[in-house]
Structure formats: C-alpha cells, structure tokens
C-alpha cells in the first residue's frame, strides 16, 4: 500500500497531477451546474411573484 502511494519515488509529481486534473474537471462540472440551479431558482421566484 505504501509502495503504491510512494509511486516509486515519483509521488511528488504523480499525485499532484492527478489531483489537479480531478480538481479542474470537477470545477468544470460543478460551476455550470451550480449556475444552472441558481438560474432555475431565480426564474422560479420571478415566475411565482408574477402570479401573485
């Protein structure tokens, strides 16, 4: 197990590159999703207030 995390001495380079990839890919997924939800909520509240 330790051997696996050690990456043959290259842990300092291997893991950061995977970490940053994961982070960037996650951001690209999360940010638009978040924005989409916010927009939906905004539209819903606008729609609701119009009906009253």
């Amino acid at each position, binding site marked *: 197990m330790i051997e*696996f995390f050690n*990456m*043959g*001495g*290259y842990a300092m*380079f*291997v893991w*950061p*590159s*995977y970490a*940053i*990839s994961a982070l*960037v*890919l996650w*951001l*690209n*997924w999360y940010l*638009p*999703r978040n*924005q*989409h939800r916010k*927009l*939906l909520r905004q*539209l819903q509240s606008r*729609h609701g207030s119009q009906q009253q």
Partner: protein
Amino acid sequence: MFLWFHKFGSPPHFYRIAGKWIPWLSGLFLVLVTAGLFGGLIAAPPDYQQGDSYRIMFVHVPSAWMSMLVYVAMAVCGIIIMVWRMKLAEIVLISSAPIGASFTFLALVTGSLWGKPMWGTYWVWDARLTSELILLFLYLGIIGLHNAIEDKRVAARAVAILAIVGAVNVPIIHFSVEWWNTLHQGPTVTKFDKPSIYWSMLLPLLLMALSFQVYYVLALFQQCRAELLRRERNSKWVEEL
C-alpha cells in the same frame, strides 16, 4: 434525418434531451474513469525507463488530445454558425471554450510535472509544450472576445470567425514551432523514445481518453443548459419549466 437535425437544434428540445442524458453520461464517465484509473495506476507495470512517473501520461495524453479535439469541434461549430446561423451551435461553441481551455491547462501542468523528474526542469521550450501554450492563448482569446461583446448573438458570430481563423492557423503554428524547435533544440532534452507501447499501458490510456471524451460531452451539456437558460429566460418554453 434532416427533420431530426432540426428538432435537435431547437433550444427547448436540446435542453430536455441534454437533461435526460446527463445522468447516463455521468454514470458512463464514472465507470470508464474508474476502469482507466485502475488499469493505469494499479494494473499497469512501471515503465522500465521512467519508473512510475510515466503514470502521469494517463491524464496528460488524453488532456492534450482533448484540447485539440475540442478546438476542432469549436471550429466546426463556427462554420455552422456562419452558414446556417444555428442558435444551438453558438451555444455549443462558447460552452466548449472553457472546457477546452481547461484541458489545455491540464495538459500543460501535467506535462511540466512529468518534465521535472524526466527532463530536470518544469518547463522546456519543447515543440509540443510551446504549441500547447499558444493553443491556450487562442482559447483565452476566444473567451475574452466573447465576454467583451455585449450582444451575445453578435458575440457568437465574432467568436465563430475567430475560431475558424484559429483553426486555419493551428496547423501552421504547430508546424512552425516544431521547425523552430528542431533548429534551436539544445542537448538537454532527451526525447521520450518510444519502445513499442505495451498492451497493459495502452488499454488504460485508451480508456482514459474515452472517458475524457464522455466527460467533454457531459460538461458541455451541463454548460449548455445553463447558457441556454440564461439566454432564453424570457421565452415561453422556459416559463413552462
């Protein structure tokens, strides 16, 4: 076929379809990426020359491929915009830009992280790294131009022209940089000489590449949905949601 094309191109329809596809795509992506990571990080043996550091390749190479693929997709969208003025293509084009820029950024960062143990420095003016950097500038230019123009339909046409011009230029830039590099290359750069790649390494690489492609579609749909909603907030179909 043409009818289908038309239907798929209408914003409300696309919005619904994309919404339905997103969970499936997410599932597919997770399966592929897990398999790819397992194959790449655990199953594949260390390289006899580079040890374990070559495992960076499993994220680096797919990112680099995707950075080019996304640009091609954008240029195709650009042509569609100029010829048919298709709204959906406008949205796909501009939604692709940040994703493509991210892939380019990842390719650069992982490339330099790989370069440090292999070449001894984080950055070499290697032909591929340099053209990748210029590609990143092209992406940023497209995003910047789109942000600067207020009317988004006009912005889409501007970006379409720029994407096409860029696509004509990318091969030229790549070729010139390669040529420049062979001319100036110092002795420090040891080329990544290719022994015939093993099946146990190739398979995870292809899996990762495939999963990145699925991810692109997934992120693209996500982005497009948000963009669509923002643009068409006053139209009737949005109100019905």
